[in-house]
């Protein structure tokens, strides 16, 4: 699945341009950048429970925006983070998944994949939180595949928008968490 380049100037093969754009660590036109206070939100995690970002003040948070539940692979992005929960726990980091799916879909998906972190429903208004973070894809009506690492004070310290067809893995997240744990002011990730 090729992603459309987002700037007006397009030269060379579109796939190449697309990957050049998306391999920037943040898309300056759209997603929220490090240094910015992460917008608070309150979304349903289950049919009768709501979760706010501010609930996790005091610990790092990894926000995982993703397009939709039920991708057809057993080892998708969320499955991977589920597997790596011990590594994230070393930093006391809370992983939170967010998509536009509703709570019942999330419930079924979470049970099926045995996920051990909350999935939040950015359902009504649709994509409102994704929009706040600059990662909503209007045409598709889904969020980007985007990662935000937020520090215990609620400030975004690292963000990354992945091409939707590519699972970004966990190395960037872990590098960001390590950098924060070392007390570095500017989180630097070199791929």
């Amino acid at each position: 699945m090729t992603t459309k380049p987002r700037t007006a100037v397009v030269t060379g093969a579109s796939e190449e341009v697309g990957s050049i754009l998306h391999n920037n660590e943040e898309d300056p036109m759209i997603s929220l950048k490090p240094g910015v206070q992460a917008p608070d939100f309150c979304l349903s995690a289950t049919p009768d429970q709501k979760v706010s970002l501010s609930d996790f003040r005091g610990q790092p948070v990894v926000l995982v925006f993703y397009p939709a539940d039920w991708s057809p692979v057993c080892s998708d992005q969320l499955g991977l983070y589920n597997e790596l929960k011990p590594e994230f726990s070393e930093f006391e980091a809370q992983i939170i998944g967010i998509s536009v799916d509703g709570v019942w879909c999330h419930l079924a998906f979470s049970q099926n994949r045995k996920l051990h972190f909350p999935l939040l429903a950015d359902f009504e208004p649709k994509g409102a939180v994704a929009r706040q973070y600059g990662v909503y894809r209007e045409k598709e009506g889904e969020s980007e595949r985007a990662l935000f690492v937020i520090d215990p004070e609620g400030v975004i310290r690292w963000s990354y928008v992945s091409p939707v067809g590519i699972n970004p893995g966990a190395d960037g997240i872990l590098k960001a968490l390590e950098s924060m744990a070392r007390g570095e002011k500017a989180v630097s990730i070199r791929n």
Partner: protein
Amino acid sequence: MAKSATLTQLVSAHDHAEGPADALLTLVEYGDYQCPYCGAAYPVVKRLQKTLDMKLRFVFRNFPLTQAHPHALIAAEAAEAAALQGKFWDMHDLLFEQQAFLKPDIIPLWAERIGLDLKKFGNDIEQGFAEKRIKEDRQSGIRSGVNGTPTFFINGTRYDGSPDYGSLLAALESELALLST
């Protein structure tokens, strides 16, 4: 070429490898023995090995998704314990060929089938010697940007294309062409 994740742990003599150490192409797979997609990739890799012959070195490293696949870890331990008796590939191949039948009970039978010393086999698993390698692979995989199973790296760069034979072959041949310019 699009920038993708790269291997942090370079291939060494420590790795399980098939093919010449100086082959122009090295294909590393991080895999899970209970993952159906890795099961599907198994014959693809065999075919690639046949087609590319001496040009290809294939390396397998562990990335069991223990949350999703309850038998992935014991299968990986079985392969690593077999490795300690010099029969890694026998067990690796058997695990994928018989993936449909994978469960803990069957593993001793397979160990026997490939001629392992069962006492040592069981002991190495129990003592955690087999698991050590798996933990190392998991860490190197995470750092290298493994994003699921199977994750392939061609000459150290993560392959983000489709895991079918045609696509992988094209990517490998493309890398060969790059090397000869």
